[in-house]
């Protein structure tokens, strides 16, 4: 296999200079054909670099923790419930962690992920390692992430194979009864909403 690893340790088939040039050429051709504009691409890149990220999903989780009626609506119809908070662009299914069930999200076929709520996926989520192993040996994978669950806890894996995206509603950590919704949202991590982490109690942070 040809190719090289870049400074981040990622494999590339071609040097980055060639890739970069090809992408510039593609953009130039499509602009010439009036199919895209640089401004549109700039705005999309900017939106995902700055505005759309796990802080969105964290607000949804925190609301579900403090408002039982909202939690019910979120679990019954995630798509409608996130629209209440001003989020959208995704058909969403929310799956809830409980003392007896831990949920884990993967896309074995490609990289499906709830962008609108947690941004673009990290490289590991799209990696061959995670895609191949999360369904086959989820407990081993979770232990690599530092989550060691007893066998009495069911690990429920969700392979995102359709145009529905999955978000894990983590368990609210103990010792947070007095925290405001905003403070709770700050505890919620991207990894917890994928299911490869639990939300730690504030004292443990």
């Amino acid at each position, binding site marked *: *296999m040809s190719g090289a690893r*870049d400074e*981040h*340790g990622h494999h590339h*088939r071609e040097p*980055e200079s060639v890739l*970069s*040039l*090809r992408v*510039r050429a*593609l953009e130039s*051709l*499509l*602009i*010439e*054909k*009036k*199919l895209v*504009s640089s*401004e*549109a691409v700039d*705005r*999309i*890149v900017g*939106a*995902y*670099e700055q505005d*759309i990220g796990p802080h969105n999903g964290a607000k949804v989780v925190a609301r579900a923790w403090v408002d039982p009626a909202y939690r019910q609506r979120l679990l019954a119809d995630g798509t409608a419930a996130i629209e209440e908070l001003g989020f*959208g*662009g*995704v*058909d969403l299914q929310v799956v809830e962690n409980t003392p007896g069930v831990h949920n884990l999200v993967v896309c*074995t*076929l*490609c990289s499906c992920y709830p962008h609108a709520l947690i941004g*673009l996926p990290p*490289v590991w989520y*799209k990696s*061959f*390692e995670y895609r*191949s*192993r999360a*369904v*086959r040996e*989820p*407990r081993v*994978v979770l232990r*690599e*992430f530092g989550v060691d669950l007893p*066998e009495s806890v*069911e*690990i429920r*894996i*969700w*392979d*995102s*194979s*359709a*145009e*529905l995206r999955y978000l894990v509603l983590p368990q609210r950590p103990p010792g947070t009864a007095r925290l405001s919704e905003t403070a709770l949202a700050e505890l919620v991590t991207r990894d917890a909403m994928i299911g490869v982490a639990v939300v730690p109690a504030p004292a443990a942070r």
Partner: protein
Amino acid sequence: MNGIHDMGGMHGFGRVEREKNEPVFHAAWEGRVFGLTRAYRHLFNIDESRHAIERMAPIDYLGSSYYERWLDGNVRLLVEKGVITREELERRMAQLASGTDPAPPHSDPKLLERMLRVTKERPHYRQPGPPPRFATGHRVLTRNDAPVGHTRLPRYARGKHGVIDRVHGSYIFPDTNAHGQGEQPHALYSVRFDAAELWGGSAEPCAPVHIDLWERYLEPAAPARSTS
């Protein structure tokens, strides 16, 4: 298709490596590929887009980074659809390398508005279709089929028994939509599979897998015999 992308359950890939303080994009070109793909979504649908990546030669797929695979798939589709030619792209690369960009600036407020709207509006993949044949709790058997084209029934779940966990509604069918055969929306289900059904005796305990599967992947199955 029995493609390299269909990786669920494969062995040999090793530990999941995580990167600390990972940026959204690792290089500017990755962001451009992502943005371009969003911008010309009207030229081809998501299923064509996925299938283009799946058609990469397996050795190239495994040797490429994520956005390299996107770029490869995008170029493949744009060429197949007659939007660009490979020669044109090579020529433009040479022109840019020598310092000239012949493309006049282009502004398109409507395109911009449409792209930004997509991040807020409900996706269009859910479309009216025939009523579902199965209900929650029904036992089903997935088809043992090895289509040459695009499918979203992962290889590891073919010919397996599962239980309908949830009826999602009617969704555009990727297997036809990827091949210009229409959207053919019909019932989509979340189907629950016991780990032992998928992986046999070496499965981890208490680790069922839920997969979203279209009705055409499924056949009715007899009620489960007690196995315990």
